[in-house]
């Protein structure tokens, strides 16, 4: 519908205006700073650290780890850090292909360890992060306050009818979450003879939203959760005690009737990265902090909406001794 162009005289005028505009723009717009003029030579001089490919798995606690390690590697070691947002399995694949140098927070994953460390020999363990991972069943705090005995698994059947939903087929609902994490819940429900049905929420997002709403609306909810996790600083979920974990009690997946073990979260690096033994590898190996440390940085990111860089800077500035200790080892 370019009606304008049917009338040559008018078009001619437009063409003239365009030309004039072009010239005017060229003449007047040439003010202001030029590209590259004021950048104070921040590039180059990457030192002998070189490039450091750091996988970032998709949860906030991990992002807190990655933010601090990347910050220290860039500021103190002059590394060029490439953060890559990847799911666990894909990150481990990257060890073999040289696309990933380090994974900072590994939750158990014996299957991956077997495959990549023992069989393919492309990865090696690089020690604990100092964080302890806890997996279990949780209820919102209002329930723990109102029904104090609910946090013992022996009493769960007593309350089962409260947990009924449209999804649980007449039984109580046990909401499971992100398939990335280990779960024995089906076996647990069966072997502990609980009148519950496992419903798969399918994502961490769904779990957090469910707990958030259960607490604010005071509705019953029993769900699978884990710590360290930033959400726990928003709503302090109460953990349900299951029969205590003993070594080997989870050996047969069908017959599990005990709590989850505590996970010593650890770091995994690619074999090549470890053999090269550069500054970035030494930093990764030395990196170690507490659950509280991680929770603080995770809170900066998740609740205070700081960028990972700013969150890392804030923590590093407040904890120079810890950082110094890592650097001393590297």
């Amino acid at each position, binding site marked *: 519908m370019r009606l304008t162009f049917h009338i040559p005289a008018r078009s001619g005028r437009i063409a003239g205006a365009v030309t004039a505009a072009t010239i005017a723009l060229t003449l007047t717009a040439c003010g202001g700073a030029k590209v590259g003029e004021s950048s104070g030579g921040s590039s180059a001089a990457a030192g002998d650290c070189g490039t450091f490919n750091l996988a970032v798995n998709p949860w906030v606690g991990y992002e807190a780890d990655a933010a601090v390690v990347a910050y220290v590697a860039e500021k103190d070691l002059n590394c060029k850090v490439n953060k*890559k947002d990847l*799911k666990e399995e894909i990150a481990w694949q990257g060890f073999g292909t040289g696309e990933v140098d380090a994974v900072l927070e590994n939750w158990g994953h014996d299957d991956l360890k077997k495959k990549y460390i023992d069989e393919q020999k492309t990865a090696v363990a690089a020690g604990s992060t100092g964080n302890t991972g806890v997996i279990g069943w949780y209820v919102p705090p209002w329930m723990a306050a109102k029904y104090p005995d609910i946090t013992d698994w022996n009493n769960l059947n007593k309350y089962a009818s409260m947990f009924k939903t449209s999804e649980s087929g007449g039984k109580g609902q046990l909401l499971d979450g992100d398939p990335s994490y280990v779960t024995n819940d089906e076996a647990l429900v069966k072997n502990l003879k609980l009148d519950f049905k496992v419903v798969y929420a399918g994502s961490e997002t769904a779990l957090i939203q469910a707990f958030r709403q259960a607490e604010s609306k005071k509705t019953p909810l029993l769900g699978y959760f884990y710590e360290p996790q930033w959400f726990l600083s928003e709503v302090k979920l109460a953990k349900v005690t299951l029969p205590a974990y003993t070594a080997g009690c989870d050996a047969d997946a069908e017959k599990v009737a005990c709590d989850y073990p505590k996970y010593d979260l650890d770091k995994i690096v690619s074999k090549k990265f470890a053999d090269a033994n550069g500054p970035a590898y030494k930093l990764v190996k030395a990196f170690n902090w507490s659950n509280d440390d991680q929770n603080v940085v995770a809170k900066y990111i998740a609740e205070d909406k700081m960028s990972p860089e700013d969150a890392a800077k804030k923590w590093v500035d407040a904890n120079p001794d810890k950082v110094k200790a890592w650097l001393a080892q590297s």
Partner: protein
Amino acid sequence: MMVTTAPAAPAAPTSTAIPAAPPTGLRRHLGKPFQVVVVLAVWALVWLVTRGRDTLSLSPADLTPLHRWLNDVNDTVGANRNTSPIFLYFFNEIRAAIDALVTFIQGVISQPSFGRPVPVLGWLGVVAVVAYVSWVFANWRVALLAAGGFVFLGLQGLWQESMDTLALTVAAVAISLLFGIPLGIWAGLSDRFHRFVTPVLDFMQTMPTFVYLAPLTLLFLIGPASATIATLIYAMPPAIRITAHGIRSVPRSQIEATDSLGATGWQTLTGVLLPLSKRTIVLGVNQTIMAALSMVTIAALIDAPGLGKTVIKALQTLDVGTAFNAGLAIVVLAIVLDRVTTAASARVQQTTGRGGVRRLLVIGLGALAVVGCYLSYTYVWAAEFPGGAGLGSALARGADAVTTWAQDDLSTATEALKNIVTFALLNPFQALLTGSPWWLVGAVIGTLAALLGGLRAAVTTVVCVALLIGTGLWQDSMTTLAMTIVATLMVMVLGVVFGVWMGRNRHVDRIIRPILDAGQTMPAFVYLVPFLALFSASRFTAIVAAVVFAAPISIKIIADGVRGVSATTVEAATAAGSSTWQVITKVQLPMTRQSLTLAANQGLIYVLAMVVVGGLVGAGALGYDVVAGFSQGNLYGKGLAAGIAIVLLGIMLDRIAHAAAHRSGTTPFKRT
């Protein structure tokens, strides 16, 4: 399957097929629903006796030998990646080429490059080029829209992310077209190739991306290449399909006339077939772009740069506002690219050559665009988008406020709605499907296919049922099927209500259409959190998410159909004293039966495309199997099997619908 623009040529009703219902046809139509009801009644009766038997259930943690074998195949590929010559000389070369292409485009528009702290073209240059190109290939109105849309991206504070997404989309679309158009021409010319390629395309479009993301990173490593290939697997099929459709729609007489003049095959192709199908091919380009944009968030899971990353990161902290802002940027990109290519396809038909004045303007405005590029290359103000993300954070705050309101004030009512639909409709239906023995369900589906579609459809259906059993995920498939059918019913209700309304009223159409576009292109990840707040983690949430995605296409198709009913017929009915209600139910809807069938078919395929997203919000079944397979190595094989099951469900339902539409007298339609 992101058919955003309804003008999709195949949807247009063939002239005004007057429903001259002969008595025989009438009897047949009265008989068929009755037979279907009988089959369903028999099913319910047998179910009462046999329920719970032979249901082939498999718990989420269990595996079948097939799943284990698929795991082993995956492991073997991984273990041999660095030694096998196929990798060293084939996959690695492809990867290097695609990486270079994407990195180059990023260097031009999004990433610091060539030793500069900014890309070659700053925002002013990109806006100038986009506006100029839109004007040259389409018209000044969409040029203005394009410029405005791109400036909006900058105001949202997402300039660089948007350009990264654009770079990846451009690369994926370019490669899709490079291979897709020639393949489409081939499929248009050769019936044999067409028959061969159709199921392959079905596979590419319905296989959930989650299933092949991990293997892709194994073949093409982590980086732009894998993200681009993941995108083009989904984006290329529309280019092939619509090109083939365009070639096939050229009237026989035209080709014969050329042949009789002694033209060679090449001359026929370039002189007749391509010029006459040009408009349709441009529509294929349009659909390819839309499909590529719908992959933005998923590709971010393997480190694809751009807006998808912003959405995924925001989701980790349930930051709906930030996710919405980034999702809106994707919608804006989609609408701009859609309108420009649609307008360009309309332009293709007009003869160009408005003489010297236009040529003058082309040169003049071209010079202006070049100046814009130069300025953005040289000066900081034109290179980096000025100002903060004022608009972006305002939008984010707005979305947050709406979400909070929904989860606090609205959720009691919506929970009730969820419970009603679940207990009254979904649970009984699912009980029937999952509680029946497999042989009963198989027999019922086979009989229905035979009744509605004929022998051929019945055979296809039986094969699909057998293969579904083979995947080891029969019961999960039935659960997913129940949800799919309920969702499709809801899609059709919305489709008829809004489609008729839009078809009868142009103003309504103009207001609703952008909302439909948003429903189709807004990444589902953005609205998952509010939906979870409204309906908690449940199958119903998954259904609602699927309806949001699938209803727009059905509404658009039905609206087009209603508008296609000839005005004289409607006027005649009105003159004869019919009320509005009578005009709609007795004239407009019956005459758009073909559109209704197409709308149901497309709605269903779109619903299936959301099965995996449903798995993230509590749908369980096949969707969860796929998600779990993507997350845990030892469940990989099961996830792959679940992906195949989704494809089988899609092919089965699609073939039945096709055959039914064919048999019920309407002309067969092509899926786009």
